């Protein structure tokens, strides 16, 4: 389809028409917007960001304030007009905790991805470009880390911290999650290094770091971006799972995962469905939104997917 459009544009241009040829950026936006779900997800995420940033000012109640007149005999109070998402067994406003908890999820999602992409890109690029024993060393290290059962490994690492912060959790998730990115980047580099422009760069005496990061890396950026968007939701899920199992964010700090840990007991003993329903719903919606955006980006960035 795009070939046809461009040909038509070219014809117009030759005739002296003022129609401009769409720039790559315009084309990108046109393709991305075609994915209505991805677009809607983007808006949802923008709202979520606003909520997370403004959290201290917009929570209706102090998220850590207990109120035992609400939660009588340790029974969570159900949703009401004052507390739309109810309270927990200590009378803490569940919506306020949910709002504050969004910060943990987003921090972990982005930071863990940043670490994984950073480490993975550098190691993958070096391995793919240098080859030989450097390549072997890095790839064997990746093999070893891939042999670990990821969840168990993370739990074992986190046991070493009394109260791991979102930052610590994110870094640990990132540090053991770079292997797939490095494989991807290495694969790209294996073909890129033999291309003419790489040989030309080497011929004019460009240094190795300059070849790797200035000449080759920009050509491998699309798959990296897609991998990044898809790794954010994975990191969010991982953090919430860890916190749910009691190895992540420790109460009283609120995170969506440890809110569900409370829900485990409260839903069984006090039939307080709202305690488990809302945090899980928001994890699911956030992860879904990131997945849709990732999918939209892939279609918009990957030339192989354009024809479909």
């Amino acid at each position: 389809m795009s070939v046809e459009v461009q040909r038509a544009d070219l014809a117009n241009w030759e005739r002296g028409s003022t129609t401009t040829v769409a720039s790559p950026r315009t084309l990108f936006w046109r393709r991305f917007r075609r994915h209505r779900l991805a677009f809607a997800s983007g808006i949802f995420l923008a709202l979520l960001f606003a909520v997370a940033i403004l959290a201290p000012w917009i929570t209706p109640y102090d998220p850590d304030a207990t109120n035992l007149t609400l939660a009588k005999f340790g029974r969570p109070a159900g949703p009401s007009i004052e507390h739309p998402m109810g309270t927990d067994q200590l009378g803490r406003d569940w919506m306020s905790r949910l709002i504050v908890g969004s910060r943990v999820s987003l921090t972990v999602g982005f930071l863990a991805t940043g670490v994984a992409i950073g480490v993975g890109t550098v190691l993958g690029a070096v391995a793919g470009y240098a080859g030989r024993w450097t390549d072997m060393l890095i790839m064997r290290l990746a093999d070893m880390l891939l042999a670990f059962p990821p969840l168990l490994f993370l739990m074992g690492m986190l046991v070493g911290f009394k109260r791991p912060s979102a930052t610590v959790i994110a870094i640990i998730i990132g540090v053991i999650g770079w292997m797939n990115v490095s494989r991807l980047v290495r694969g790209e580099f294996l073909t890129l290094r033999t291309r003419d422009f790489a040989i030309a760069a080497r011929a004019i005496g460009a240094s190795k770091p300059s070849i790797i990061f200035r000449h080759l890396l920009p050509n491998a950026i699309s798959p990296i971006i897609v991998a990044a968007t898809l790794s954010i939701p994975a990191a969010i899920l991982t953090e919430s799972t860890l916190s749910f199992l009691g190895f992540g964010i420790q109460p009283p700090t609120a995170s969506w995962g440890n809110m569900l840990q409370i829900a485990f007991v409260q839903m069984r003993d006090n039939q307080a469905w709202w305690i488990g329903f809302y945090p899980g719903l928001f994890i699911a919606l956030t992860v879904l939104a990131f997945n849709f955006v990732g999918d939209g980006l892939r279609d918009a960035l990957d030339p192989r997917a354009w024809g479909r």
Partner: protein
Amino acid sequence: MTAYIVRRLLWMLPLLLGVSIICFAMLKRAPGDPVGAMLAESRDSGKTMTLADRERLREQLGLNRPVYLQYIDWLKLVARGDFGTSTRMNQPVSTIIRQRLPNTMKLAGVSLLLTLLIAIPLGIISAVKQYSLIDYLLTTFNFVGISIPQFWLGLMLLYFLSVKIGWFPVNGMHSAYVGPGFWAHFKDSALHYVLPVISITLAGVAGYMRYQRASMLEVMPQDYVRTARAKGLTERVVILKHAWRNSLIPIITLLGYVLVIMVEGSVVVENIFSWPGMGQLAVASLTQRDYPTVMAIVLLSATLILIGTLLSDILYAVVDPRVRFD
């Protein structure tokens, strides 16, 4: 081929050694030790433990020696096939694992089988009817399926179907009392399987279906599929024999990976449904600093993962004769 397999198997040894060293070091730097956990337990049961008692226990468990010596001691034992004694349950680790592993395998096995049985046909339908209503519905289901946290799904199923309506048992693998007869037992145990299996399978189906669809789409426009149609074969034969079989090549390598997901998923699901398997054991052992058990679980899972990847690589060569190992 044989040489390749042998080489891969030999390569597993240094990998596992590396895994065990990292894991050992990781656990040793964690605050608290098994004695601390025992102390808390004895306090709960109203007994007191003197400082001398604690010191004696540490000595007995070898916790006062340098970490690298502790590691070497552990390694020597493992080389003889002995994983030590669980500090939490005071039983040989191998005995505990022999009780727990089959339970996890049953859960993961049923889930894996169900995943394949559902995901493959749906993936084929989705690809054959690309861009139809059913394809859109299935693709959307995929996204939702991979986005729902497994433990949330488990909790919701547990609450609505067990606590609220009471259709399914709340936890465990068996009821405390079951009526006589084979069928009563079968029905009881089947009911215990339903919710954990659903929780694990949903994500598996969503993920696997996606790959099946993609690889079918890859194969459908190939020349040999067109040839098969041109020969006048029925659509059914074209799709199932010519297209589907070839589409399996890339996704068969995912089997090992799916197995890992199933085992990982069982960690969460077992803890929700109190399923007496490896996942529950892992979490309990980690919180109680039961090092020998944790080490054994990590080593066992790492071996499983390595064998899983090796098997899928071998399968790759079996289904695709073009693949040759150097």
